[in-house]
């Protein structure tokens, strides 16, 4: 992320944080979206299979884009539709102006359409004297206020009923009381006459079906029927990526969309429009249906292996409902025209990298991918955008400092007492903030007297016999700051009959991805995979001690090294430490206990959600005898690796703001201790709540179980 973008966005965030929060309704909308989604997923017998099916539909759609386009054109033309191809927004707008002019249209009604917003259609139409009215209520409010949408699904969520009443009072020239029912009546009344007088309707399309030449449009308000069936002319503006082959594929997607968006089982109104039917039986058909099919950078996106997946987006908004920083700053800052996480790659590729400076707001928690109904690797695309942005300017010093932490701590571990003494001094902290940009309010974790790697190489009497081969992947924190944890893991594994080794390795390099240094990330990935593959080929497994490192090995490396088969093999054999220990308990190699049962609140780190979701931590804590409850908001705690270490609005301030809700929940949850596997989350949570935060292994003992078995990894799991 370039310094330029960093400064630009930091200023805006600072204004938001300074003005006090305005996001309560936004947060509520997001929470409802998240909860609705989870509830709707329970309807499915196999949510994972459904997600993969939807992804395959979109993969096929983009792979066969040109063939499907041809097929769609043939079949829609048979039903009397006129197809207009547009390579960019200007061409699309010109088509629409020509159609409207030739038809002598005056009054245009529209349904909500991001594609028409993408090409900024309304202004040129109004400049030519057409009256253009948005009919989706949220969009209408935004239009009257002269703003841009705040949220994909709830564009006007930042407006109070009073503000909306004022807008409609001005429009209608009479006082509308600021009560929701009064406002709704006014909305219905004012729009009804607009609908009835409209001679041209413009809609987007959620899906287009090649085999039938059909356009599918979803609305909750039912404005679409009035926009398409009252005027004589219907114009559809759609991106070329929207075409699927079959009706079967379309009916899958109309389910995926509302489930992920609002948690509805189906959008209230879903219309399959196949040509423009006649007005009534007694009239000959004189209606027209035009379909504008827009490229505007989509074909270029398709050719770009990193950004191709963005075309799979079905615009459900689930990624913004889970995005921690979006919840604080909202869509006006976290977006250009396309808002939220998926808005970052879309903006960069459609509207240009200089409009995508808001990518700096992404803290790389990875949750957007978790909730995406078509499993788009949004985090990796955002890293790509950050990389593009870096080509325009240098990396802010603080990011460079935090990415270089490994060399700093390697140095510090030579003289731990001096380093630890220094980093506790307030003048050093002020200096570090001033010189490096590390927030002085953050405690700097003290470096341990001996690093784990040093200890491991020097230790006496490692176990050399055993039927399990385990290679440890020990990231930065367990190596330099909490080596006792890694030592404990070695001891437990050896008790269970494993031969433990520590192949040469560097820290996961995930911060490089977070800050858009993909080339550096690639080098680290290559180095680690080249070393770890030997263990895998030797019949061993990789056990990783930090969720982010596990995530990097399992998900980020295979993506970065996508043509490199070793990377996939390493990913398949990589396990989080609690997952692996839980397996050893399952097969009877270990027993788990604690001498001091406590009330434990579990925090699930973001990157762990795509791993085991902390299920094994929870299981082992319970087996040990603790009273366990998961405390969560469904989004990130705000720390996000090194993000929350940084000074100022794009760092500590925003991290604390994001974490606020979770801190409160933890404080109210009446737990003695919080358990989490992530070291960075623990710094943030401990500071934010004052409750001690421990690694789950610090809350349990695992010992050799005399009734050992010799089952292989998966056999004993049930």
């Amino acid at each position, binding site marked *: 992320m370039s310094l330029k973008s960093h400064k630009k966005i930091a200023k805006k965030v600072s204004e938001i944080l300074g003005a006090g929060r305005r996001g309560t309704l936004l947060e509520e909308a997001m929470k409802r979206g998240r909860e609705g989604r989870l509830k709707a997923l329970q309807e499915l017998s196999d949510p994972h299979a459904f997600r993969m099916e939807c992804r395959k539909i979109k993969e096929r759609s983009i792979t066969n884009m040109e063939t499907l386009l041809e097929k769609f054109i043939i079949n829609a033309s048979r039903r009397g539709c006129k197809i207009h191809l547009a390579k960019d927004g200007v061409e699309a707008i010109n088509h629409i102006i020509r159609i409207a002019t030739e038809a002598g249209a005056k009054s245009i009604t529209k349904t909500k359409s991001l594609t028409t917003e993408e090409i900024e259609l309304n202004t040129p139409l109004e400049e030519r004297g057409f009256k253009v009215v948005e009919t989706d209520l949220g969009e209408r409010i935004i239009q009257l206020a002269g703003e841009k949408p705040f949220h994909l699904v709830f564009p006007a969520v930042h407006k109070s009923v009073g503000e909306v009443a004022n807008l409609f009072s001005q429009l209608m020239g009479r006082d509308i009381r600021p009560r929701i029912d009064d406002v709704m009546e006014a909305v219905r009344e004012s729009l009804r006459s607009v609908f009835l007088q409209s001679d041209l309707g413009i809609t987007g399309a959620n899906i287009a079906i090649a085999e039938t030449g059909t356009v599918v449009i979803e609305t909750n308000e039912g404005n679409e*029927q009035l926009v398409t*069936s009252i005027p004589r002319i219907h114009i559809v503006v759609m991106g070329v990526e929207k075409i699927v082959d079959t*009706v079967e594929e379309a009916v899958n997607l109309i389910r995926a969309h509302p489930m992920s968006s609002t948690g509805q089982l189906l959008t209230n109104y879903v219309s399959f429009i196949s040509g423009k039917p006649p007005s009534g039986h007694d009239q000959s058909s004189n209606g027209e249906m035009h379909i504008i099919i827009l490229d505007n950078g989509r074909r270029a996106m398709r050719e770009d292996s990193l950004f191709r997946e963005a075309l799979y987006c079905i615009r459900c908004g689930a990624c913004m409902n889970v995005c921690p920083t979006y919840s604080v700053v909202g869509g006006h800052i976290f977006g250009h025209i396309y808002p939220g996480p998926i808005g970052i790659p879309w903006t960069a590729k459609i509207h240009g990298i200089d409009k995508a400076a808001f990518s700096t707001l992404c803290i790389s928690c990875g949750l957007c991918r978790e909730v995406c109904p078509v499993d788009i690797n949004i985090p990796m695309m955002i890293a790509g955008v950050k990389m593009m942005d870096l080509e325009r300017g240098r990396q802010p010093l603080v990011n460079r400092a935090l990415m270089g932490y490994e060399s700093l701590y390697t140095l510090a571990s030579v003289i731990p007492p001096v380093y630890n003494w220094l980093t506790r001094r307030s003048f050093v902290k002020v200096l570090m903030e001033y010189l490096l940009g590390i927030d002085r309010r953050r405690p700097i974790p003290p470096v341990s007297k001996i690093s784990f790697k040093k200890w491991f190489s020097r230790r006496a009497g490692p176990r050399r016999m055993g039927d399990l081969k385990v290679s440890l992947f020990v990231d930065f924190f367990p190596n330099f700051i909490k080596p006792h944890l890694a030592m404990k893991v070695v001891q437990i594994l050896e008790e269970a009959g494993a031969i433990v080794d520590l192949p040469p390795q560097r820290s996961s390099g995930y911060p490089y991805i977070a800050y858009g240094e993909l080339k550096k990330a690639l080098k680290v990935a290559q180095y680690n995979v080249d070393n770890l593959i030997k263990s895998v080929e030797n019949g061993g497994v990789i056990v990783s001690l930090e969720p982010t490192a596990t995530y990097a090995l399992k998900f980020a490396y295979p993506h970065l090294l996508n043509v490199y088969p070793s990377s996939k093999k390493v990913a398949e054999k990589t396990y989080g430490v609690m997952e692996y220990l839980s397996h050893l308990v399952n097969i009877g190699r270990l027993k788990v206990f604690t001498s001091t049962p406590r009330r434990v609140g579990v925090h699930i780190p973001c990157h762990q959600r795509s791993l085991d979701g902390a299920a094994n931590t929870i299981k082992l804590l319970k087996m040990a005898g603790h009273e366990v409850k998961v405390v969560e908001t469904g989004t990130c705690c705000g720390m996000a690796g090194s993000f929350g270490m940084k000074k100022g609005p794009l760092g500590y301030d925003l991290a604390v703001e994001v974490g606020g809700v979770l801190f409160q929940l933890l404080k109210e949850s009446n737990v003695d201790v919080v358990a989490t596997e992530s070291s960075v989350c623990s710094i943030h949570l401990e500071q934010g709540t004052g409750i001690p935060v421990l690694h789950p292994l610090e809350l349990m003992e695992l010992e050799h179980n005399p009734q050992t078995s010799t089952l292989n990894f998966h056999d004993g799991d049930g």
Partner: protein
Amino acid sequence: MELSNITKPLLQLFKERFEANSGSAYILAGLDDLPKTLSTIFNDAGVKKAVAARIPKRFEEVIISTLTASGVELIHGASSGEINMADAGITYADYGIAETGTIVEITATDLERLASSLPRIHIALLHLGNLLPSVEALAEPIKRALQPPDSRKYITLISGPSRTSDIELRSVLGVHGPHQVHVIVYGGV
């Protein structure tokens, strides 16, 4: 007609889900119950004028006599402006979908479609035999409805009244389309 073991839970699910979508579902014990059901809806909702579209022939007479008996004027609906004058639109639903509580209308003209989209009250008749278990099961009927390949049609899936949460996230019904949707299921029990 006896309900099969399969249809009965399907019908219950449909009713439950349709009502969860803020619609009202009525299951007729016999066709003799249709006038009573209709007139109750008219009275409760204060319907004065109604339009009708795609009503099966065999219901025309009973619907007209019920309208007359309830003091409801049947208007022709020859234009969108005319349909807009109606308080209620009475239509035929081609299918119902149980898992989502949805009715499906296949219309070949704009005005037929507007009969269920413009008035504040929408009343749809649905034959029990056209109840589908899932959205997936709708794929075949959609393809059939779109034959021949030069035909022009709207297939509209309706899951309850018109709805918005755009102001302060408060769910409000009837922003543009119907405030109430009633589905009368016949042909069973």
